């Protein structure tokens, strides 16, 4: 009886998940100690944990977070400022929507980030390259979702606006935008996820900037625990970012 209620508890599976991850690390530590896993390829998990503090202090992680954060902020704001008006225009002009919506969808699936050498030539090896590349990578989802959100606004709401004789501007800000906001935000969430992947990825590839460069630097120095710690750190930052976006999206959902 007690075991059945334990299985039904919300926290039990979470505890099992966390403890099995911990067990895997403990096993790895053991295998490394007895020499079954090569310690020149995989560092001791305990060393990785210890290295976290070291890289935060020695590699100036706060400054790197600021740099990556600045690139993220610029790109995230720009995708909204560019993507939402384009999505709105595609909603408003049906002919234009029919003509190019497939192109926008294709853009979302295309390996655009591969064009980074082109942008290196255009803008040099600078943060501008990372920002422009990330904006281009993140635009498609927000355009598609803005059009989808606005198209999904219930006609009855539009008719209420018309019966109140709202102007086009009032109709957009008082009816369309609030009603479409949850869908538009899911586009923002997708776009910002693309932006994060692009910013960190390009920083790593061109060895410039904040957190992406940190991984590259440590790997080139063959600082094994440091490299693993830096990767873990970027993963933790990414996961926190996604969780935060998800919270905001859930918070916005009841508006609909």
């Amino acid at each position, binding site marked *: 009886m007690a075991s059945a209620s334990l299985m039904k508890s919300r926290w039990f599976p979470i505890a*099992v998940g966390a403890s099995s991850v911990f067990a895997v690390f403990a096993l790895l530590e053991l295998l490394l100690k007895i020499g079954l896993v090569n310690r020149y390829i995989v560092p001791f998990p305990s060393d990785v944990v210890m290295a976290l503090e070291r890289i935060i202090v020695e590699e100036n992680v706060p400054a790197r977070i600021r740099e990556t954060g600045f690139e993220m902020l610029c790109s995230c704001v720009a995708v909204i400022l560019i993507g939402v008006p384009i999505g709105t225009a595609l909603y408003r002009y*049906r002919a*234009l929507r029919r003509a190019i919506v497939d192109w926008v969808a294709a853009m979302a*699936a295309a*390996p655009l980030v*591969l064009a980074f*050498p082109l942008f290196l*030539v255009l803008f040099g090896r600078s943060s501008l390259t990372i920002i422009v590349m990330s904006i281009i990578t993140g635009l498609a989802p927000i355009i598609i979702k803005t059009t989808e959100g606005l198209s999904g606004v219930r006609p009855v709401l539009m008719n209420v606006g018309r019966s109140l004789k709202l102007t086009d501007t009032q109709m957009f800000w008082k009816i369309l935008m609030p009603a479409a906001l949850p869908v538009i935000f899911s586009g923002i969430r997708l776009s910002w996820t693309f932006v994060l992947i692009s910013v960190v990825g390009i920083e790593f590839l061109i060895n410039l900037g904040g957190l992406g460069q940190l991984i590259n630097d440590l790997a080139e120095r063959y600082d094994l625990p440091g490299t693993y710690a830096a990767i873990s750190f970027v993963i933790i930052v990414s*996961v926190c970012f996604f969780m935060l976006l998800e919270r905001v999206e859930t918070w916005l959902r009841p508006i609909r």
Partner: protein
Amino acid sequence: MASTDQVNAPRATASRGWITSGRVSERDTNLIRIGILLGVAAVWEAVSRSGWLFRDVVPSLLAIGASIWKLLMNPAFYANLQVTAWEVFASLVIGGALGIFVGILIGANRFLAAAYEPYVYYLAPTPRIIFFPVMIMWFGVGVASKIALGALSCFFTVALSTAGGMRQIDKVLIRVGNSFRATPWQMGTKIYLPAMRVPVLNGIRLGFGTATVTALLAETKLSNQGLGFMIMQIYARFDMPSLYGLLIIVFVIAGLGNLILGKVTGTSD
């Protein structure tokens, strides 16, 4: 409320204001598309000839066209294409198989899903390219590290899609299987696999996209073969028409691959 919506729907879509009214013919759509393409080409060519930007940064369309032709006639292009194609294929097979296996496990069992799915879910959108140094340490600088990284990218997409597919299976189908006293093998092959075909194939299609991008990016970072390596070689020579040309070819190949996979699996939009 729903009935009010339905009654008002035709009036709302055909009225003035925020929604442009009327039907758009296929001919008009094509005309707009052609107009946009011609407009972009004209602006591009004007900028190219104006000298406003550094020479060759915006090469003429003719030069890009000629470079595409030259690349397609170059045997080295096909050798590199073969390497990248192999990396993507192997990534898809390894990552896809592991993804389906894990997806079935967490999709079929609520406890396992509650315990382990958050890890798969939150790791899925992290930038995979940052794992490249680890893959180099484990698998060397050759093709194997690109395959491993591609498989890692593909795994998460396929696993999440398969788990979602498992949960969407109609319970009636499972009860029918049980009432016929189907063996686990029969349940798997006759009920589960056909019922979750679409989400799994969709996951594989998405996995193809992520595996392609990751393998190509890894090639740009450290490689001596593959299309990503070729892009970096052309970039190092500052041969801009060829850089544009190769990028266009890669985008077309990735798009065609996605389209073909969509047609083959029956999951195209």
